[in-house]
């Protein structure tokens, strides 16, 4: 069963000069697969991930997730889809600085409103515990270190039990011990809960230990 499928994806930038960032990308990702996306800086990994996450709709080609074609859908519909099915960890671990760690993690779940508030709070707390930062739950997000913030962002990405978790260097700010923790969590999510992971990484060991590697260069896939 396929979790994600792309067909002939092209992406152009017009500023400052016309430039094709992604060239005819077609690939499939199976459900429960742990995929690493690698390649040199500037090869188009983040650009691709924004398209896969449905946030960027300005591209050519088609994107299909869970058998549903998302290309051409209205952005309000896509927002709801993201909320329910996609967890995203940014390259620069963005949290809302005025809210507490716990509030940050709860927010996508409160938006989805699948569970009662008290239950959401318990679940958020459990995710924080999973990543070893439950002690920070009551702190303002802006008061955390870079690595702590990144782990909170991962916890937030997991809160709605999304079908796909996309991470743009999700362990980029973590020491090797914590990178190992996150890797184990991702591994367990894929095997135990059949969730799919697509992670951009510069960490060779991380990539090697994942199920599959897609390597990009100058906007094309050179290995998958």
């Amino acid at each position, binding site marked *: 069963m396929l979790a994600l499928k792309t067909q002939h994806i092209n992406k152009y930038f017009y500023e400052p000069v016309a430039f094709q960032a992604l060239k005819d990308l077609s690939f499939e990702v199976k459900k429960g697969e742990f995929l690493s996306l690698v390649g040199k800086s500037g090869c188009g990994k983040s650009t691709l991930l924004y398209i896969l996450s449905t946030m960027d709709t300005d591209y050519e080609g088609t994107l299909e997730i869970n058998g549903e074609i998302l290309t051409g859908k209205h952005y309000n519909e896509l927002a709801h*889809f993201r909320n329910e099915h996609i967890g*995203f960890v940014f390259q620069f671990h963005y949290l809302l600085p005025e*809210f507490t760690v716990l509030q940050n993690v709860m927010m996508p779940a409160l938006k989805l409103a699948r569970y009662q508030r008290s239950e959401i709070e318990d679940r958020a707390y459990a995710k924080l515990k999973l990543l070893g930062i439950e002690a920070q739950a009551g702190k303002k997000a802006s008061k955390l270190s870079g690595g702590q913030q990144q782990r909170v962002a991962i916890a*937030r990405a997991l809160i709605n039990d999304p079908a796909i978790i996309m991470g743009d260097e999700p362990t980029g700010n973590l020491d090797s011990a914590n990178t190992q923790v996150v890797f184990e969590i991702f591994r367990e999510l894929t095997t135990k809960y059949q969730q799919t992971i697509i992670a951009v990484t510069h960490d060779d060991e991380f990539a090697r230990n994942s199920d599959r590697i897609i390597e990009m260069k100058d906007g094309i896939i050179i290995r998958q």
Partner: protein
Amino acid sequence: MKILFEIAKTQMLSRSRQTLIATLGVTFGIGMFIVLVSFMTGVNILLEETMLSATPHIRIYNDIAVQKTSIVNEYAQTQNNINLIHHIKPKNEKRNLKNGLLMVENISKDAEVLGVSPQVSTQVFYNFGPIQMNGNIVGVNIFAEDKLFDLKSKMQAGKIENLLTAHDAILMGTGLAKKLNLNVGDKVTVSTPDGTLKLLQVVGIFKYGIGAIDDFRSYANIATVQKILKEDTRYITDINIKLKDYYQAKSIAKEYAQKFDYKIEDWETANATILVSFTLRNIITYATSLTLLIVAGFGIYNILNMTIYEKMRDIAILKAQGFAGRDVLGIFMIQALTIGILGGFSGILIGFLLSLWISTIPFDSGGFLAMDTFPVNFSPRYYIIGLVFGLLTTTFAGYFPARRASKIDPVEILRG
């Protein structure tokens, strides 16, 4: 969506100073609107009431006018003549309303009419030693007149009933009495235009608070004035009418104009210039206070624009997590409306308290108007207008920045 309220609340609290300032802007705008309008309409109402307290809603009288056509023209029209007539003068006509008493009876049957007072009025000179003072005497049925103008409440000395018991008695305007140095019980000689002299006794002194009346008018019984003018008991010069609803005066006056062949004047026409000044004052008031509200609106527009500019990244994160454009719109509209509602209600409160305070400030109108303090109108209407307009302004001022926020493209922001 509760989460939208939570986000809005956190954002507002984390920039509480700006929020407070924007709220105070609305408070000030609505408060001043209420104070200005309450005060201005208070003044207008006082002036209108003062005016109406002495002006009949409808007055019927015989307007002496120069005839447009002359007998010569009527006669010579058929011939091919040209008649040149210079400087036509009015005939020696009596100023009375023929069948006046019949008209009174007729009018008093009208369901719209509250009271009718037939009068005989005449110019007189009040003799004060060697000096003669210009004025007039109005012969009335004093109870009918009281029904129209609440004379009893305007008596400064004596009672209106004295007019009935005493012989050849008058009630005199306070200004006139002061000038003539007269008190209740004193006597004064008046002379009519045709030279008749009459000795009258002052049995009461009234004050309307309007110089044009208090300095010139005296009241007497109809019969007394008819006697001075050497006319019979059917001689009536004016009919004053009070209506149940004085805003109907214009249309009823029109109706009467078709029934009776005399000059019918409603109070609005008689006081057109004063009413125009009311309108102008209202326009200025509304213009000033609406400007205040719009300035407050700019305050809200400004703070939301600034918030959105600073929170661009947060908005992108929210969208990345699945908050739709309309959720973001909602978050910022909630902020605008919270400011609007808080500012609106505190504005109403401030407006009310300020109005209350103004209404206690002593003001001396020099005796021209019946007031001791500033007049303030506490009609709830202006509070509702202020609130509604304040909310409209904030909604409007909030909508444009909020819509801009809802359209932010998250990828563009997050790509850095």
